[in-house]
């Protein structure tokens, strides 16, 4: 692991000097700002049941669908397309270190972007001067949920990037996988054919993997270790698949 920090600082530096990072960050904040403004407008018209933070984080899947593919599609696909993976892997660096370095860098950027939205709540707090608007429970729960679920989402993106040398393909693949993970689980749960007796265990598994359910729990302040385990274990799995993906491509290059 001695090269992990070298690779991580290299990746972070590359992200910081690249204009696309700033464009993506600006677009993200503008988008989230619009959502937040919309939420505030609806609150100013009529009293609502939930706190603004709750509604705001409920829409977490919108930025996830476009930000995660954009952040991760480049990481391994670009290395392979340029051929720099060959120079990288012929130094005393293991594939694991390379994948983890890129994963950690993308995750750091993801967290930074989300934490920037904290500014919205600060402004609300500053000018509304009403403690009811800033219910710290859902706010902290929401950020915790974003941080924990981000582990898995970014790992899925890295995995998609390890499968293709084309960034666009990797991006679309990542989007599809995230869509299946977040929305697909919801559809499956509602579908009728899972209600049969034989499929009870499948139904239980689908319910366990409901990302919206996890979100609800987190914002209500319930941090369930089973859910944490779900995210940590599937993150590890996705990363192992990414490492295998990179190595399998070498064997068949």
């Amino acid at each position, binding site marked *: 692991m001695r090269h992990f920090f070298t*690779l991580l600082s290299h990746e972070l530096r590359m992200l910081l000097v690249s204009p696309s990072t700033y464009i993506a960050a600006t677009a993200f904040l503008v988008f989230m700002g619009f959502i937040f403004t919309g939420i505030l407008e609806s609150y100013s018209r009529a009293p609502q049941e939930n706190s603004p933070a709750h509604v705001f984080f409920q829409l977490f899947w919108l930025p996830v669908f476009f930000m995660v593919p954009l952040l991760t599609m480049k990481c391994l696909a670009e290395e392979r397309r*340029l051929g720099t993976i060959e120079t990288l892997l012929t130094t005393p660096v293991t594939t694991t270190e390379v994948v983890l370095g890129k994963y950690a860098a993308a995750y750091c950027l993801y967290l930074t972007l989300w934490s920037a939205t904290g500014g919205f709540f600060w402004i609300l707090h500053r000018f509304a001067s009403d403690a009811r608007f800033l219910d710290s429970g859902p706010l902290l729960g929401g950020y915790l949920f974003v941080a924990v679920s981000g582990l898995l989402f970014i790992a899925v993106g890295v995995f998609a990037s390890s499968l293709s040398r084309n960034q666009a393909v990797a991006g679309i693949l990542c989007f599809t996988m995230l869509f299946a993970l977040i929305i697909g689980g919801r559809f499956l749960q509602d579908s009728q054919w899972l209600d049969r007796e034989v499929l009870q265990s499948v139904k239980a598994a689908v319910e366990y993997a409901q990302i919206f359910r996890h979100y609800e729990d987190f914002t209500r302040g319930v941090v369930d270790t089973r859910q944490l385990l779900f995210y940590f274990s599937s993150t590890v799995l996705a990363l192992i698949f990414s490492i295998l993906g990179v190595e399998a491509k070498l064997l068949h290059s």
Partner: protein
Amino acid sequence: MPDAPPAIEVSHLVKNYAGVMAVNDISFRLARGEILGFLGPNGAGKSTTMRILTGYLPATSGHVAICGHPVASQPDAVKRLIGYMPENNPLPEDMRVSEYFYFRGRLKEIPRGKLGPRIDEVLELCDLKRVRHKIIGKLSKGFRQRVGIAESILAEPPVIIMDEPTIGLDPHQILIVRDLIASLRGRMTVIISSHILPEIEMTCDRVLIINQGRVVAQGTPADLRREILGRSSYQAEVAGDLTTLPALLAVVEPSLRLADTSEPDPLGFVTLTLTTASDTALGEPLLRVLADAGLRVRALSRAHPTLEDVFLAATRRSWDVRSDPPRKN
């Protein structure tokens, strides 16, 4: 160190790509400090062999060891012993030259304190000082190539593997690279592949010619010339009565033959091409015999077959070999 293992040892290396035999039973050894030139037409298996040497690709069968460390079982040890410059020299587009060297140096485990001076040294060696703060993506082809070469020698590894290092360089830069590689002789073991044959001939101690995944010839450039072409040839420009010539040639050396005669030029001189199986210098006796026979000799020279002739002859010969039985092993 008389009992030190050879820098590179390859025995019965085979690599299959989905049924296509890219490398077919290659064996060679390279002592420390030697420079090996790797020659072969496109698709002969040069790059594949080099990638297997670096541990980047696994071999189908066979044994490869770098400084006594088997590549298959100790890839980490091997990666610390090599500097590798791949084909087409891939470089990150959006880094500065010095940043890139710093990053690579850290990856290659050069201590932080030594890295700065070493980068300066390498930049100086490869004449890159002027561009050290430029972005790699904006450099010209020659500079990029030199960045790749400099990077491969950055950590001073005992074995350097370069896949076509001089491609895209102008003659002046080729000269710099040649001097650079020559300066490594004795300290580092170098394998370079190239299409530029005079280049290989001038820098390399030994040459390995491969074709269709097999070694078709190996040895020093001089050995190869003798082995593949098997004879010396002479050219003489002579005027006079040539009817007695075959008899005269037999006097000089029994195997000396007249291979070709050109049309006489306006002054009456014809150019003769003579071939012999003998290796000794026949210039002087030949000149004497021709003069004694009353022929006027204007020029006599011993033709020096270049590595290019050897290469063409060797690869053509192996095509012939391969064309009759397609499956030998």
